[in-house]
């Protein structure tokens, strides 16, 4: 088995998921200049809601594709409502407050969601019964299963669709205008509160799909899983240039690939000292390097005027 090709493929799958979550960070940052630390936890809710729905629908005897579709739909509705409510209740009242206030609120919201999830699902791992066993195919000396292919294709469609929406729809144009100058956007007749709410709603819905992917890919979830996933997606967003949608996509894919390749070779490189369970280190190495060498990220132009 070719370890390089294999890890590249694994990295692409992981990176697609990171990219989807990173979009939620970057869209909100772009429009509000706010790092919505609760976004990783919204994704966690998407994963756990999906897990519960898949179990229930499977137990009810529905065919697997139908239950996956319904579970994804359910997760999207729950997360979109959650994202919308977070903005409305926690962030909107702080719109003109000093920058530190919404940031601290974001951390508070994150903790609130985590412990609400712990109350609902308990603190143990939630395991998905092995109801789908996707067949694998052999490709260039590596194994790819159908689930991995589905994740990459679906993620690509969502990212392409979002980029199209932002650049070619009326609402997308209003989002970009609001991001650049909210006061003038309102002079054009844009209800900027509605645009901001829409941004949260979209980012959270995409996060829900990412949550579904995570639970299908790894088979387990946990009330605290949003923390690490969120940090990595945030790193991906910073790597690509936070506020830049294309940057989130590139940053997510790159981070997934770096992490997977590094995890594949770390044992070899460290002479057996570190195993692949140290993989999480690499995301943060990347974060530190980016902040040191190119703080505006790969696609960011403006340096530090908001960060």
């Amino acid at each position: 088995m070719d370890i390089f090709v294999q890890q590249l493929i694994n990295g692409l799958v992981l990176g697609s998921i990171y990219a989807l979550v990173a979009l939620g960070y970057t869209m909100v940052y772009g429009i509000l200049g706010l790092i919505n630390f609760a976004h990783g936890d919204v994704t966690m809710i998407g994963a756990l809601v999906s897990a519960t729905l898949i179990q229930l629908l499977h137990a009810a005897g529905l065919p697997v594709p139908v239950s996956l579709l319904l579970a994804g739909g359910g997760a999207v509705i729950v997360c979109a409502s959650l994202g919308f409510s977070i903005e409305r209740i926690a962030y909107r009242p702080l719109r003109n407050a000093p920058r530190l206030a919404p940031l601290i609120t974001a951390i508070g919201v994150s903790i609130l969601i985590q412990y609400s999830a712990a109350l609902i699902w308990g603190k143990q791992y939630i395991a998905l019964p092995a109801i789908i066993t996707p067949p694998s195919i052999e490709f260039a000396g590596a194994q790819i299963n159908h689930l991995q292919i589905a994740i990459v294709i679906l993620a690509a469609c969502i990212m392409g669709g979002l980029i199209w929406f932002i650049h070619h729809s009326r609402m997308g144009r209003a989002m970009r205008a609001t991001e650049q100058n909210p006061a003038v956007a309102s002079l054009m007749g844009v209800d900027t509160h509605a645009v901001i709410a829409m941004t949260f709603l979209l980012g959270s819905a995409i996060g829900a799909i990412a949550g579904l992917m995570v639970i299908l890919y790894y088979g387990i979830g946990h009330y605290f899983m949003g923390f690490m996933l969120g940090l990595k997606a945030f790193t991906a967003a910073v790597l690509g240039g936070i506020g830049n949608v294309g940057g989130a996509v590139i940053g997510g894919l790159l981070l997934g690939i770096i992490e997977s390749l590094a995890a594949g070779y770390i044992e070899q490189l460290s002479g057996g000292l570190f195993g692949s369970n140290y993989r999480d280190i690499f995301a943060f190495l990347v974060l530190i390097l980016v902040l040191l060498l190119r703080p505006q990220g790969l696609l960011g132009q403006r340096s530090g005027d908001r960060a």
Partner: protein
Amino acid sequence: MLDIQSLQIHYGGIAAVKGINLSIARGEQVALIGANGAGKSSTLNAIAGLLKPHAGQISYNNQDITTLAAHRRVTLGMALVPEGRGIFPRLTVAENLAMGAYCRNDTQVIAQDIQKTFAQFPRLAERRLQLAGTLSGGEQQLLAIARALLSKPQLLLLDEPSMGLAPLMIQTIFEAIKTVAQSGVTLLLVEQNARLALETCSRAYVMESGQIVLADTAQVLLDHPRVRQAYLGEMGEPT
């Protein structure tokens, strides 16, 4: 059409506008002139809904709009070209214009109107796919005015359209403004360039430190000693 009663605007505890009255009839062209910091922009921003007045009332077509959100005022036929132009720098020229028509839903007419805009301002047509932030100051001002016109306003509020522009460009801009006025749009023009304002408008208010100190026809004000001395740069040091 527009009626302002005892308008007061505060920043923190500091009064910038101290209870002014101002009214404009449909089809009029009115100027608001005054020195730096007199409170002209504050007044205009309050009319457009960007600022919440501390006290007073703003009525538009006999409707009290004092607390109406800015984006709702656009649909009532009001448009502000803000000080410093306020173009969206990372949208293209064409996208900026499309934003001007955001409040309308007659999609096909909008496309025609944008074509007309390009016909009227060839400089913008040549640069339609360029990011607006790369335009020159004068081109940005043209864009800002053209964009405001695409909302089909009945009342157009202009905040210092001549600011920072070369004389030739100012001439182009003011020709465009006069064309707009001739088409029946009501105009409230804020200008530091008092001569230009008084030549463009039929009536004017003079504002000093948050208060209106003079209000008369442009003709009378052009000959008014106080105006001549303070704002037209005659018989004293220019401002």
